[in-house]
């Protein structure tokens, strides 16, 4: 029975495709998958904005939104209906375009942000047999469309003819480009071990169980470090705290989307959160086993439920990190990417190679763990040497 529940979306799609003539079947299949993605992920986005506001509120000793239910009715949802008035507000606000702005580019920037982000969902395996487009080079496709988001950031910052927007856009692009390198390098370790760029193969390689625990790559030394590097880099890719200097309100008002109001701002916001979900989905696929369950006696739970559960759990961790850490300054951010994460990602690749070539005995755990954690400690301590954090001295004007 649970297998039927697991494959319910696939069987529904086949059912609908049976009524469609042969020639139109690929088109209708693609339309159905795209409709499902467009229905589910903005819905998750709406719920996550509520969870974020309530979660950050609780961490900061206050309630989040806790009164709004469904408007025009008497249903009180303890604040979970807040996204409905937020959406209506962003749709009805006046759309102001600065007089000196580049109108065509200003108009196209949110669209150019949203299209690659939505394209990225096409390769993620949401469940068993539930990938929209299983490319041979699926992982490369994901990173390629991730790189296209930076063009839209530049378009937004330049077309506003506002020097703060431009500054925010340049900072955002520098940050995104710098953090793409540890992101891709930490994903390369998984590709090395699996031997394929297909995301379905990567999930299938993690679908084995020994002693009841799944063979997720996060449970290996190189996988743990790779996972942490990947998620830190994905925080920076989606411009989220503590890496949100390009768009923080107290720093640069809204950075590259200062001059956007109303629905265009909502589109940027949506694009940012959808990008965050897509990268989390990729991280789950690479390191956390995709749609597989962690223990062998829970495999009866449907695969897409596992995927969404893991995604929401990682989103909670991101919200937790946002509420805890202060913002990183631009030079601290760049130092982190180039001086700590890049060497660590390179050493991680070497360690993954050692793991593969040492066979499957127990010594490889010790050797790999020793190398990678030793490198981390050496890098961490070494990078702090030149910072003389002593007692503060003052120099007074004469």
């Amino acid at each position, binding site marked *: 029975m649970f297998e039927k529940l697991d494959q319910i979306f696939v069987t529904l799609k086949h059912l609908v495709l049976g009524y469609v003539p042969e020639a139109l079947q690929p088109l209708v299949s693609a339309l159905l998958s795209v409709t499902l993605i467009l229905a589910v992920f903005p819905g998750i986005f709406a719920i996550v904005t509520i969870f974020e506001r309530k*979660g950050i509120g*609780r*961490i*900061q*000793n*206050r*309630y989040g939104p806790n009164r709004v239910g469904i408007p025009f009715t008497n249903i009180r949802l303890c604040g979970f209906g807040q996204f409905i008035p937020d959406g209506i507000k962003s749709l009805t606000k006046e759309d102001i375009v600065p007089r000196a702005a580049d109108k065509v580019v200003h108009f196209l920037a949110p669209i150019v942000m949203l299209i690659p982000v939505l394209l990225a969902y096409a390769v993620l395996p949401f469940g068993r047999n539930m990938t929209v487009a299983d490319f041979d080079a699926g992982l490369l496709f994901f990173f390629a469309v991730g790189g296209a988001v930076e063009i839209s950031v530049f378009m937004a910052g330049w077309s506003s003819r506002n020097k703060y927007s431009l500054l925010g856009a340049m900072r955002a692009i520098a940050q995104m480009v710098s953090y793409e390198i540890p992101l891709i390098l930490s994903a390369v370790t998984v590709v090395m071990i699996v031997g394929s760029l297909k995301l379905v193969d990567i999930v299938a390689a993690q679908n084995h169980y020994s002693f009841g625990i799944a063979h997720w790559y996060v449970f290996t030394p190189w996988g743990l470090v790779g996972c942490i590097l990947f998620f830190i880099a994905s925080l920076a890719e989606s411009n989220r705290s503590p890496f949100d200097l390009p768009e923080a309100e107290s720093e640069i008002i809204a950075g590259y989307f200062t001059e956007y109001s109303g629905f265009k701002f909502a589109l940027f916001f949506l694009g940012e959160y959808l990008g965050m979900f897509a990268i989390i989905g990729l991280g789950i696929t690479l390191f956390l086993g995709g749609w597989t369950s962690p223990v062998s006696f829970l495999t009866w739970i449907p695969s897409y439920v596992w995927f969404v559960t893991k995604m929401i759990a990682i989103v909670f961790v991101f919200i*937790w*990190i946002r*509420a*805890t*850490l202060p913002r990183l300054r631009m030079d601290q951010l760049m130092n982190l990417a180039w001086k700590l994460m890049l060497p660590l990602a390179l050493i991680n690749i070497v360690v993954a190679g050692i793991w593969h070539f040492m066979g499957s005995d127990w010594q490889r755990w010790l050797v790999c763990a020793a190398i990678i954690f030793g490198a*981390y*400690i050496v890098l*961490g*301590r070494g*990078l*702090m040497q030149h910072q003389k954090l002593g007692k503060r001295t003052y120099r007074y004007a004469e």
Partner: protein
Amino acid sequence: MLGEQIIKGMAVTARNFFGSYVSKERLTTVQYPEERLVPKENTRQFPFLVYDGDDAEKGLRCVACQICEKECPPQCIYIVKSKDKKPDYKGQPQLYPLTFDIDISVCMSCSICVEVCPFESIKMDTEFELSTDDRFGALLLHKQDLAKPNSHYHRVHAQDAKDSDVVIAGEKAKAEAKAKAAAEKAKAEAEAKAKAAAAAAAAPVPATPPPPAAA
């Protein structure tokens, strides 16, 4: 720089998050206006006039001395004295205010009027939900809005009301004692005068020469 401080920080925030569901100290927000915080003893907002007993006209302690009007820094008090007098709590006839207006859009809650009042008649109230949509009329409080009973004063400032009552009782007792002493003195004087009058009436009778009884 190994990241252990980050983990410690995240443990603190996690404790805050889970603690906010169980303990009041971790979620100090009060859901106003359904729940309200208990105001402190010396909360103050705008002044009010105290009256003893049940009748606001008869029991009003204010005697329109206009000291508060003169001492008020933004000059938000406007008093018009009455022409006739009525007895106050000490029994002495005093003037009373015909008009007593406070403009609370001007009042800055400095409570100088309270400090200088010699009759314990103007005190600070704690009412703050006074917002209205009438910018000019509704923010000018008249005597009938300002006069509140002594029981209200006890409710909002228990300790100050008790002290005020002690002062008032002391004054009353002093006044009564003075009145009694004056009454005693008057009675004593009257008795002495009566005695002297009686002695004067009795003494000159034998002092006059006896009328010629031989004739």
